[in-house]
Every structure is written in structure tokens, then in C-alpha cells.
């Protein structure tokens, strides 16, 4: 039955029990990066869009052509409106995100570390987390008057909860054996938190930042649509009311680029801090 040498060509279906080749069945389920394809598909889509609008298959009042959007962007950049609205929104996101995630980190760590804070915090967080935070804006306006504060607080409250949950799970998920190891060397509690628990939670915290960035973007636009003079959201709303769809689409492009840039910053942070994984 067992032969040292493989004789002849395979394939020919022999009699039952004769020698036959084992068929390969491990193909597929193997994704490879294909960067070129992404760019080509993107370019084709834009080209089709351009053709469809210039041939008037689509009414440019409802959907302006990519070229028209670029022109709108250019004139916005030249007039200074782009920077004015963008910087206003960025400042709101910045403060809101800073307060929300700062407080979220502290509360998340406390809930991860101590039974008391967990028992108190968990039901509160669970109850308020699902509320769309934009629903709180009218309340914040009542409390704090119109102006920047209620918008920043709305964004902060939206950022706070995902950060709390991400931080809490990160701290809670720190391998017990690492904490025991720290204790077995008499490390002080603050050292254990700073040198063991925080680095171990960092992947989860950064993943939480990704979610809270998106929330911040959503909330800044919503808040500015409800009541603001400047900001990308206010700009979008005005453009819509005036049927200036090219400006409106320019605003959408700005938001897309903004979201991508924030995501890229996070990716850089992950590369810098999580290279050990």
C-alpha cells in the first residue's frame, strides 16, 4: 500500500480504493489589501456623478456636481467663511470633548476600581447613556442661558458616557494576575493604577475615544442647527434654507474631512502607544 515514490500522473479515477489525490479545499476567506481598487472605485463614482449632473440626468439644484462643490469650497475658503465656521465648531468640539472625556476617564477609573463607586455609578450611567444627549440641550439652555456653554456641555455629556463605559471596561478587564503581581512586589496602589491598570486599559480607552469623537461631531452639528450664528451646523442649515445645495454639500465634505482627520489622529495615537500589542 505504501510506496516511496509517487508514480505517474494523478487524476485518472482509479478503481475504488485506488490511489487518488487529496483535493485542495482551503481556498477563500483570505482578504488581501487592494488599495488601488478603492481609489479607482472612488474615482469612477465621482466621474459618474459629474457626468450625470452635466448631462442633466440629475437636477443640480438637488445634487450639485462634484466640480460645483469644489468651486463652492474654494470660494468659501477665499472669503474666510470656511475658517470662521470650522474654527467655531472645532473650539466647541475641543472644549466639549476635553471636559467630557476628562471627567469620563476619572469616573470610569473610579467605577472600575471600587465597588462603592461602581454600585452608585452603574445604574446612573445605564439610565442616562441611552438618552440622545441633544434632547438635553433645551434644558442646558434654560440652566445656562444661550451662548457657548450649553453647546459645550451638550457635547461634553455626549462624550462623557462612551468614555466612562470604555474606561470602566478597560479597567475592569485588566488581567487580575498582573494586579496580583504588582501587589506581590508591594507596589503602592497609585503605582499599580498608573503602571499596570492604565496601560492595560489604554486600548479600550482609545477605542472609546473613536466612538466619542463621532458623538462629538454629531452633537456639534445638531446643537449648531438648533441655535448658533456660526459653526458648520449653522452654515449647513442656512445653506439648506436658501437652497444653496453647493454650499450645503461643501459643508458635508468639510464634515467628512473633519471626521477622517480626527480618526487619523486617533490612529496615530494608537500606533504610538499600542505598538506593544
Amino acid at each position, binding site marked *: 500500500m505504501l510506496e516511496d515514490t509517487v508514480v505517474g500522473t494523478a487524476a485518472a479515477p482509479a478503481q475504488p480504493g485506488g490511489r487518488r489525490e487529496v483535493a485542495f479545499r482551503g481556498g477563500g476567506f483570505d482578504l488581501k489589501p487592494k488599495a488601488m481598487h478603492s481609489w479607482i472605485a472612488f474615482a469612477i463614482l465621482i466621474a459618474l456623478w459629474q457626468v450625470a449632473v452635466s448631462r442633466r440626468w440629475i437636477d443640480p439644484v438637488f445634487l450639485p456636481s462634484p466640480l460645483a462643490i469644489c468651486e463652492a469650497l474654494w470660494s468659501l475658503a477665499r472669503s474666510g467663511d470656511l475658517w470662521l465656521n470650522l474654527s467655531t465648531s472645532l473650539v466647541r468640539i475641543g472644549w466639549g470633548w476635553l471636559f467630557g472625556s476628562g471627567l469620563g476617564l476619572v469616573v470610569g477609573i473610579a467605577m472600575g476600581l471600587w465597588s462603592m463607586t461602581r454600585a452608585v455609578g452603574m445604574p446612573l450611567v445605564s439610565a442616562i447613556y441611552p438618552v440622545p444627549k441633544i434632547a438635553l440641550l433645551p434644558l442646558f439652555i434654560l440652566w445656562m442661558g444661550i451662548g457657548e456653554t450649553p453647546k459645550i456641555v451638550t457635547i461634553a455629556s455626549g462624550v462623557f458616557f462612551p468614555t466612562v463605559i470604555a474606561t470602566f471596561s478597560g479597567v475592569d478587564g485588566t*488581567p487580575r*494576575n*498582573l494586579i*496580583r*503581581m504588582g*501587589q*506581590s*512586589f*508591594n*507596589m*503602592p496602589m497609585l*503605582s499599580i493604577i498608573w*503602571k*499596570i491598570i492604565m*496601560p492595560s486599559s489604554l486600548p479600550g480607552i482609545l477605542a472609546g475615544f473613536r466612538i466619542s469623537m463621532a458623538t462629538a461631531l454629531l452633537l456639534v452639528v445638531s446643537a449648531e442647527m438648533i441655535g448658533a450664528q456660526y459653526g458648520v451646523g449653522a452654515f449647513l442649515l442656512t445653506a439648506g434654507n436658501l437652497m444653496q445645495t453647493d454650499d450645503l454639500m461643501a459643508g458635508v465634505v468639510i464634515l467628512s474631512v473633519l471626521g477622517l482627520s480626527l480618526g487619523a489622529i486617533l490612529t496615530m495615537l494608537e500606533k504610538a502607544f499600542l505598538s*506593544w*500589542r
Partner: protein
Amino acid sequence: MEIIADVKLHAYGTLTVLQDIKLHLRPGEILSVIGPSGCGKSTLLGIIGGILKPTDGAIYMEGEAPPDCLNPLTFIFQDFALLPWRTVAQNVALPLEHHKLSSAERKARVMDALQRTKLDEFADALPKQLSGGMRQRVGIARALVVRPAVLLMDEPLSALDAQTRDLLMEDFLDLWLRERVAGIYITHNFHECLRLADRIMVLSRRPGKIKEIIEVRIPQRERAQKSAQAVLADLGDRLWSLIRDEASKAEREVVDA
């Protein structure tokens, strides 16, 4: 330094894990604790090292630790417990960082520990780049860096493959013969017991009680020699007969966690 343990009872709720364990670790001695899985060996070590609180009982140290000792009772863990974001040298330096040492002394201690475990070439590697055996060497270096009085070893080799285990055990023995640090060595492997231990404590299955304490009178240095094999084989048979029933009963038990 000597360790006197008197664990009258350790229980999780109604589940008794350890009962009436008295042990006395003499200076420079390696005491091996062997028993079927789930008999509370690791729990016992945790209690001795002050990581777990016994339900009833206490652990005592007696005698002075060496003057440069920073952490008398020092663990070596089964799963190595290395910080994956720190390099080898940084992991080894971790237990020194909260002590007041000059940076020169800190560096000297780390270098010394790395040299003694033959890790000096790998000081800047991350744990993920190392094999299991090398990772446990880092665990050993981290324990040596504090100049321990007693090493508490919780199945330090059982996460490794058989070949690596044998190699590392020989290194371990070399190191121990040079340093003469007393140690408690938890294992379920006869071979490791018989190679390393001065005394072997056999625990019964849960609730873990002392079944017998066996003295291995041949010096570790001579145990690889042919003349020792017959005696060691006899001891091995005796250990196996002590544990066999317990192990097979323990294996059939339903674990209620």
C-alpha cells in the same frame, strides 16, 4: 529566613479548600508541594505570600532577610505575569521603581539579574517577541532583582512545552545551587519535584490536607547521576501511589465554581 505556615482552614463560602496545613520552611530549603489539580496548591501559595487571606490561620516569617533584600517573599508566576508594554529590562526594573535606590544601583541590579538569567542580549525586546521559556526567564530575573529571601513558585514551568521545561529546570537548578534561596515550589509534575525538592509535601484532593511529607536525601547535584536513579524511581513510585487515587477521584469530580 524561615517561614512557618499554620493554615487551619481556608474556605470559599461553604467550600473548604484547605484544612490543617502546617509547614515549616527551613533556610535554603526547597519544599515542593504536589497534589491533584484543584487541591488548593496555588491557594496555599497565595496565602503564604500574603496575597490571599486565610479563613483561619496565619503565616509567620522568622529571622533576618539579607540586608539588600527588598521583597522577602517573592513570587514567580505560572503565566509569567509580564507587562506586555514594557521591554524585558523595564519589566525586570518594575519592582525596584517604588524603592529609594540610586539610579546607578537600580541599573546595576537589573543588569545583574539579566546576566544571571542569560537575558542581557534581550534587554530591549518586548515580551511578545520572546518564546515561553524566555518569558519565564524574565519572570525569574524580575524575582531575583529584589534579592528575595524566599521564592514562591506557582507551577513556573507548567505553561511551557516539555523540552523547554527540561532546559529551564536545569537552569533553574544551577541558579538555585548558586544562590541558595529558599523556595516553595508548587507543581503537579513528579519529575520536577524529584529533581528540585529537598522535601515534598503531598496534598490530598479537596479539601487539601497534608497526606505525607517525603524527604529526598540525595543532594540535587547528584540526582542526575546513574547511582541515584534507583532511589529516585522508588520515590517516584511512592509519590504516584500516594496521588493516583486522589488524582483519579479529583478528575471525576464535578467542579462547582
